[in-house]
């Protein structure tokens, strides 16, 4: 369960202060797929960064499985991310010069998985996205859709409980985008993992169990949640 409590993140100082997210709270139960929907600049990416401990908001708590990750030391947050979380980005961020195998192996190395156990996991992840035959190919030789599938393999190889996808289909045409979406949702369903999709794509958001509409740093509306999240304040200034 991810509990976001009164998160506020501002950029800049004094007169130039920009409030990216303002007192946002919600709770995501385990195993749910949630879309954070908003236009660019709405604060949805900042929210994802805060939830994953990549960014540190000035106020609020992010409690995951009973632990406030914002109170952890940066080293512990890193370890937490390595064990529990994964990311998929709009521009893939696969390492073009490295083989598909080495790309997928990276999270396992970071999570200190012994070398002997890596091979089986990497191959399983590559099979799951139907890229096993490309194991030794360099990532730069893949097509856009294949690159994103590779990114998915990298994201699921360590079997994370929480999967963040930041505009996962933003750079893909609708057919390949659809394939990528299927892989994502299938993994989340099979593993019972929580999937958080940050997007401005209504169609993609519709496929999720729940959605949070965010605008100008505050939650505008939510759907699909059993209980309504706490009432939000109006944006200041």
């Amino acid at each position, binding site marked *: 369960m991810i509990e976001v409590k009164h998160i506020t993140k501002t950029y800049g100082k004094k007169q130039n202060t920009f409030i990216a997210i303002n007192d946002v709270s919600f709770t995501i139960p385990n195993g749910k797929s949630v879309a954070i929907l908003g236009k660019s600049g709405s604060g949805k990416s900042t929210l994802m960064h805060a939830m994953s401990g*990549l960014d540190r908001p000035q106020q609020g708590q992010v409690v995951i499985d009973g632990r406030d990750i914002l109170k952890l030391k*940066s*080293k512990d947050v890193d370890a937490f991310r*390595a064990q529990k*979380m994964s990311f998929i980005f709009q521009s893939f*961020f696969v*390492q073009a*010069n490295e083989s598909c195998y080495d790309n997928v192996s990276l*999270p396992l*190395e970071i999570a200190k998985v012994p070398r002997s156990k890596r091979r089986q996991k990497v191959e399983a992840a590559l099979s799951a996205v139907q890229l096993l035959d490309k194991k030794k190919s360099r990532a730069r030789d893949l097509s856009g859709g294949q690159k994103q599938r590779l990114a998915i393999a990298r994201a699921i190889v360590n079997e994370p409980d929480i999967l963040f996808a930041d505009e996962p289909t933003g750079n893909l045409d609708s057919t390949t985008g659809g394939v990528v979406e299927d892989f994502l949702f299938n993994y989340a369903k099979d593993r019972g993992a929580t999937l958080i999709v940050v997007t401005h794509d209504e169609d993609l958001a519709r496929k999720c169990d729940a959605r949070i509409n965010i605008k100008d740093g505050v939650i505008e509306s939510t759907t699909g949640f059993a209980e309504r999240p706490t009432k939000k304040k109006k944006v200041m200034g």
Partner: protein
Amino acid sequence: MKVADIIRRAGRSLRQAKTRTLLTSLAIGVGAFTITLSLAGGQGGRDYADAIVKSNTDVREVVVTKQTDETAVQEYDPDTAGLSLGAGTPGPAAASSGIEPITMTDIDQITEVEHVDSVTPNYSPQVNYITADGDNEFVVSSLSTFAPAVTLTYAAGGVDGELADDQIVLNEDYAEALGFASPEDAVDQTVTINATRQQTVFTGSPEAKDVDFTVVAVSSESGLAFRSQGSLLISTNAAKELYDYITEGTAAYNKFFIASVLVDDPENAGLVKTELENQGYSAQTAEDILGTINIFINVLLGILLGFGALAVLTSVFGIINTQYISVLERTQQIGLMKALGMSGGDVGKLFTFEAAWIGFLGGGIGAGLAVIAGTIANPYISDALGLGDIYLLIFEPLQVVGVVVILIIISILAGIFPALKASKLDPIEALRTE
């Protein structure tokens, strides 16, 4: 992330930028090459000097002279006035050179010094000529005493232990001049040395005598010899007999410029030297001679190492530059790794190991090439300098490894600044870079 995985990833990153890695490494390689060759030259030089001193002097030997202050005005002494280097020309040469002769009293005094085994004055009789057939007579430039501790190389024959009193060692030049077809032919032949007794009062017909010697060995030229070569060697007793014959009755009789002291143990050579100096003598041990030569070698070595260090310093900036650019280029990769939970420290380590790899590669290439080039060049250098079978470049495996290790450490230090930049990179900022 495990260190082994970081090292492998670092190696892979470098392989992906082969040209850049190689060029940066080569800069360090130049330094490694220079330093390795310098060290090998220094080592070879020291070994060479050591070998020279060892084969020309006895480590138990302390050479003693009696030296007065050269610049001081001295009183005229009729005893000294008649003595000059050698026994021939009388004159004030000795006095003006500041050398006082060693007398029998001195020798008795030196013998009393603790740890001294024996004292032998340096007899170098000025004989007239040497001949093999009685017709062709040759000037003897230097006749000295045979010392078993001095290593000689022989073209023919050999000496087992001490030389007998009627035996002589010729060098190749004399063997040839005396009419022997080959060094082998000279062995066991008889040669005659003629000496003239010096006169204190001119009587007209100086007394002279012939002494016969059997050739036991012919010494050949050695890259190590600098003292005994060009000499005819006879036993101490034979030299003393000739010397006494030539100088008896003159002022030079029983007065010597140099005496050689044999110490009971090489360890005590220094002690004896100090004691002798306290008593007003001037003493030199084998180590002193070696020390003087080594100073020159070390100065040369220092200059060469300086050039090597300069090359390394230049390459340090190369590494900083390369690694810094690499961090900028790979901002996105760093961001991704941090997002996946890699700690800043591990990211820093990744870049540190890359720098270490560069140092290892450059050091290995440079030192390796130096060893190969040195090994190939050694025979030519020895040939050009006339060192015979002695090599001037000696590669100590430990030194070569040491050079590579030190260069790796220097590379790591050079990589600290870029590594720090990488470790402090904000992942969100990094992932925003397209």
